[in-house]
């Protein structure tokens, strides 16, 4: 992420993607992966509506909602971090990023509690197709939150050390873009698996 290639940031040259183009290719590919998985869920459900609806009843909707709020808020903090670095405020940028990561960690903790409850109730991926998706997709997204936090952590440390400036902060935007993608995916996942029936 530190490899600052000559991709200009939006305010330098309007009209281009924020951050590094390579990251955007990765984001597009990731969205494709998640998109296919979501559709697999939706069409698998269509073949077995009763089972899915009955199983969904066992989910902790409140936990999912809180997790949504956590990710949305952390995404908002990341927006603030980018705004700070555009004004050259490295430390403030790092602080907002750290706050965003703290919310990411809270997301992970809550998710673990939620999964723990299901496992304790004897539910596994083999229980039925619904829980296969619930656990599989949840875990896959979980790993993305972890990866996103690693990226944010890297950017935060570098920002704290003054590695970015108002003129050159592609790295911050790159990390931010990835984190927003992780948020965006969850924004679809939550209603799809926890709410809609």
């Amino acid at each position: 992420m530190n490899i600052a290639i000559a991709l200009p940031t939006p305010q330098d040259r309007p009209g281009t993607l924020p951050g590094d183009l390579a990251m955007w290719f990765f984001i597009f590919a990731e969205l494709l992966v998640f998109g296919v998985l979501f559709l697999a869920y939706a069409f698998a459900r269509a073949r077995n509506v009763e089972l899915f609806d009955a199983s969904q009843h066992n989910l902790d909707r409140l936990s999912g909602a809180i997790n949504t709020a956590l990710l949305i808020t952390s995404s908002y903090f990341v927006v603030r971090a980018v705004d700070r670095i555009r004004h050259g405020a490295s430390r403030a940028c790092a602080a907002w990023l750290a706050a965003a990561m703290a919310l990411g960690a809270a997301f992970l903790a809550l998710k673990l509690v939620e999964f723990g409850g299901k496992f304790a109730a004897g539910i596994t991926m083999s229980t039925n197709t619904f829980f296969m998706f619930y656990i599989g997709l949840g875990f896959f997204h979980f790993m993305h939150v972890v990866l996103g936090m690693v990226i944010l952590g890297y950017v935060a440390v570098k920002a704290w050390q003054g590695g970015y400036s108002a003129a050159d902060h592609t790295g911050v935007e790159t990390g931010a873009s990835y984190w927003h993608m992780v948020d965006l995916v969850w924004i679809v996942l939550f209603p799809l698996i926890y709410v809609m029936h």
Partner: protein
Amino acid sequence: MKQATALWLLLLALTALTTQASTLAAGMIVPLALAATFIKGQVVIDHFMALRHVAGILRWLVPAWLMLLLGLIAYAFTLNPN
């Protein structure tokens, strides 16, 4: 930043709405949840990911993904196993 804060509050409100939607009458849940999700997704895409500043096809790739995905999900939820 004021705008971002307002949008953040909007996203939280829509999340609350989505969560509550599950208690609605059966026919309402899916349309409402999908509509809220569409708005939320679009806000994140346009303002947080800052794609609204982008020119050309790359600006539309992610919105198109969202639109197509939600459209197909909506379709799948109208299918009946019988």
